[in-house]
């Protein structure tokens, strides 16, 4: 266990670094398009005028960037959901046995962040064989009861068994999320015969044949990757239109984490995913499902790294695993309420004056007593000092697991709510390889804020002010999310300011001029939350997060895709969370890919 002073030193070094990004977020792993698109978009035939009509885009010139043509691995959750959807198998083999996904651009399900190396390859083989073994008998029953045919007890390689072919077609279509080709049918029938001729132990040859088809299907690239390649016959168009089935998969996994259902596949088959209105209609249908709600919660929690509390916040100090789990439930419930029952705005996520607690969490937070062991919506008054996501344990604890909480929290907010990164050492007059001084735990009677304020001066302050002063606003919450008025024997002072540089690179968010700025002061956390909620950078940044999440790539705030996503619906001053996803799926950037 590292000593406290060491943690402080490292954190300060990170922060004073004033370059790059922090934590697992902000990686450059996304593929990103190269602007190869023509910029005209709207190439689909459409009675609605095609995708990409601007959606009320109000900003000035923007960059026309498409994601590249690609394959996109299923996440562990998506793998398990897909298996459950087809076989009814809810054993969640992937989540139990696959290595965790690489987190890139802030999100665990990110295109091309995941690489299948040997450990995952072996785990995939084992999972596929396990699922096949557990479901083989049921599959044979499915063939007779649902498909209405009987498998031959003496199948021939030269003359394929019609019933086996029917089964292969049904399951492969469901798992590949599209009609299968004749070549695929032939290959899978060879797997059927392989299972028949080299049977698994303990089952009949016919059952073994079915079992081997299942084991094979679950290892096929057509199952494990969802494609965004466009039609194989289209070798020239640019940008490239994804096929209707690719659109269906992209929409379904993005919105619900599940494979496309029968309704969506039917729409793809009928060519009914070719207009913005058609896609919007399917989006609205899917987001209303339990999977749609759950996926929205996961997106917002990953945006602020709140999901990290589950992995690292349960063993330290007064935070028990039970309380950490309660914090997770609190935030999930809050997001559900704000997004689906409240105004649905990002502003409400930051300032909503209510939360969900049970008796234990209310006591832990020093909120008025709640008698129920189940979670209940409770109002938050000014005396509680809390409102919105940033005052909930899931954020506060997750953001306190690395370095000095005060600094790290401020840094996270600068990065993920304002989409800005700190100035470089060189821009502040330091050498490029400048090594920041170490920071030690303050003496008794001195808060970390007081110690930092005394230590950080001159050019260091020019950088620190962009995140340290935001962190001041959260000083009433200790590392474990408990409310405090004293820290280390000193009086907490939660006043601060949100600074805005006059020069920020719109493509990267890099603060170019740290010296020239404006600022908005606040007196406490409520003031900080209110200031952030009314900051015009917030909606723009959130839209870029929506695109990053949905498109599986980095998305700069000056991209047209982001501006289209951010557009407010008619009569509203800002787009809701759902509204932004609606905007995105209706834009050309959802279904076109750079060649």
């Amino acid at each position, binding site marked *: 266990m590292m000593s406290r002073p*060491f943690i402080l*030193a*490292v954190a300060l070094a990170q922060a004073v670094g004033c370059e790059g990004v922090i934590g697992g977020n902000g*990686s*450059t*792993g996304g*593929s990103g398009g190269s602007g190869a698109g023509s910029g005209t978009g709207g190439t689909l035939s459409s009675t609605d005028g095609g995708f990409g009509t601007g959606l009320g885009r109000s900003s000035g010139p923007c960059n026309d960037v498409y994601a*590249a*043509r*690609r*394959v996109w*691995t299923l996440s562990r959750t998506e793998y398990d959901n897909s298996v459950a959807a087809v076989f009814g198998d809810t054993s969640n083999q992937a989540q139990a046995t696959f*290595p965790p996904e*690489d987190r*890139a651009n802030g999100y665990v399900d990110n295109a*091309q*962040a*995941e*690489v*299948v*190396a*040997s*450990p*995952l*390859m*072996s785990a995939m*083989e084992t999972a596929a064989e396990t699922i096949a073994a557990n479901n083989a008998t049921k599959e044979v029953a499915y063939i007779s009861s649902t498909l209405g045919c009987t498998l031959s007890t003496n199948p021939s390689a030269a003359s394929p068994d019609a019933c086996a072919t029917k089964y292969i077609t049904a399951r492969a279509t469901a798992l590949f999320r599209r009609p299968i080709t004749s070549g695929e049918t032939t*290959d899978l029938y*060879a*797997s059927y015969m*392989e*299972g028949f001729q*080299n*049977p*698994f*132990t303990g089952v009949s040859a016919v059952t073994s044949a079915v079992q*081997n088809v299942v*084991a*094979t299907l679950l*290892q*096929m*690239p*057509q199952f494990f*990757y969802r*494609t965004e*390649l466009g039609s*194989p016959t289209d070798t020239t168009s640019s940008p490239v239109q994804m096929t209707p089935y690719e659109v269906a998969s992209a929409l379904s996994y993005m919105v619900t984490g599940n494979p496309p259902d029968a309704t969506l596949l039917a729409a793809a088959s009928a060519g009914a995913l070719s207009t913005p209105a058609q896609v919007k209609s399917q989006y609205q249908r899917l987001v209303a499902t339990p999977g749609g709600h759950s996926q929205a919660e996961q997106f917002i929690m990953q945006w602020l790294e709140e999901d990290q509390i589950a992995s690292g916040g349960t063993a330290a100090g007064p935070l028990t695993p039970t309380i950490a789990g309660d914090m997770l439930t609190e935030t999930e419930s809050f997001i559900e309420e704000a997004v689906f029952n409240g105004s649905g705005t990002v502003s409400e996520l930051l300032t909503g004056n209510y939360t969900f607690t049970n008796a234990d969490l209310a006591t832990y937070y020093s909120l008025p007593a709640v008698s129920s062991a189940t979670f209940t919506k409770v109002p938050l008054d000014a005396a509680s000092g809390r409102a919105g996501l940033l005052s909930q344990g899931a954020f506060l604890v997750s953001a306190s697991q690395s370095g000095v909480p005060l600094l790290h929290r401020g840094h996270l907010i600068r990065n993920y709510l304002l989409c800005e990164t700190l100035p470089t050492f060189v821009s502040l007059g330091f050498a490029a*390889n400048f*090594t920041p001084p170490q920071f030690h735990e303050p003496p008794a009677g001195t808060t970390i804020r007081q110690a930092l304020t005394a230590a950080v001066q001159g050019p260091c302050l020019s950088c620190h002010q962009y995140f340290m002063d935001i962190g001041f606003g959260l000083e009433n919450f200790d590392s474990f999310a408990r409310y405090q008025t004293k820290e280390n024997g000193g009086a907490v002072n939660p006043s601060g300011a949100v600074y805005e540089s006059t020069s920020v690179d719109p493509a990267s968010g890099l603060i170019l001029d740290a010296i020239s700025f404006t600022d908005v002061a606040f007196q406490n956390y409520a003031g900080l939350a209110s200031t952030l909620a009314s900051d015009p950078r917030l909606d723009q940044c959130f839209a870029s997060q929506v695109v990053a999440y949905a498109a599986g790539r980095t998305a700069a705030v000056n991209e047209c895709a982001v501006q289209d996503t951010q557009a407010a619906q008619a009569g509203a001053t800002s787009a809701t969370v759902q509204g932004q996803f609606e905007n995105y799926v209706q834009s050309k950037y959802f279904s076109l890919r750079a060649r």
Partner: protein
Amino acid sequence: MSATTSRRRFLQAAALTAASLPMLRGSVARAGNPVAPLRLILLWSPFHNPQPFYHPQVSASDSSLAPAGTNFYLGFQNSILAPLAPFQSDLIIVRGLGYGTKPGSHASGPEVFTGSTVSGTTSAATMDPAASSTASSIDQYLHGRMAQASSQSPFFGGFFSYLYSDHCYDSDICFSGGNPVPMVSNPQALYNQLFSGFTPPSSTGPSQAQLSQASRRQQTLGLVQKYLTSYQNQLPTSSVSTTVLQSHLSAAQALSAQIGASLVPSTVACTPPGASAIFNDPNPDNGSYVAADAPKDMASFIQTIALALACDITRFGALKMSAEEDPSQALVNLMPGLTNFSGNWHGDVTHNTTGEASNSYDVQMAQFKNYFMTQVASLLAALKSYADPYAPGQTLYDNTVVLIGSEGPVQSVGTDLHGNGTNDFPFVIAGGCGRYFKMGQFMLAGGSTAPSVNHNLLLTNIINTFETNQQQFNPSYTPNIINQFGDFGFSQSPTDWLST
């Protein structure tokens, strides 16, 4: 993303095939003898090796000092390698290898067995204490290619070292696809990891069920590879997705190779002794480091490792022979034969600037390193005590490659003798190595001064030797002879110089 990029490079390297590289089997290969699988043990110790005490010596006036078949001798005062003298005819001591152009000594741990650039801060002056690699180490790579049936993953035991926050001497040395392999610091835990649930493999060859399973799996993997290639063909070669698919394809090929290897009959009949026969430390560490137990724990590690190879539980593993230099824990004081030391080991010993052979601190460092070589000798002796179940008349020692790496280059006499350079890192290969290499050599890989040949050359040669061995051990095996291993920045074309 750096991890993805490095994995891509690794996988590209792994996927390379060279059609007609020279066979690596040396001129003294065992014609007519049964072919046994090779095993690999990686050993690692921290800190520099004082040059005058590390290099073997050759006396022009008394060549009798050099044992027959060798060109050097080790028996001189303060010789670091003296404990290996009984195994001298099976040593290759290599000079002139460097870690590319990378930050040097501070990054040695993550670089030494991966041949790849470290992640994190890469300036020697500000090396991230948690410096890591984004690639795979040689043990993990080889295990992925040729693990035997029921094989466990490569073991990784040892101790940490060096608590000072501005260095990375406690960094990891073994990596799997960019992920550090957790080190087991408790030898009894390593024993339990290896032997719990162990059942000797069948000696009667694969059963019909095993053959059927292998056939099904190979057929499936064939389809997987076919459609991965199909996707690749629809994408530009420069596409990130092409690289992702190439990674998947390489993993499928590796799994296919493992299945082929699993069909080779085993001749192992092993009954491991109980833990009480292994552990002479009555109070083995339980996660917390107890410096006073370190020598006993080291002995337990060695016995456990030799037994694991004898039982064919795995054929790959690593042992980190580090030690605490923090005076408050003072392992350096506990090492047998080491002069009691109370100063600043790091500042006074590893970075002293007052000369070489006359400096008492260098003598202390030589004693420190000499201690580790006594442990290497113990391991070699343990390997000699077990018959190789695959090769009658031979021992594990005959068919094991022990690769010894160390932090800290051996540099010429001058100021800051032990600065964090990148040239002339000390490597020793020990063991019989299946007679694929010409042993008993003191080699200059890059000349006598200021080398260097990148050490990827060494790693690549060893990998290709294993690939060749596997083909001979298992006729169905298709070797993947590679041009380089690790980061392309360390690139060197392989030669057969270890066998010549």
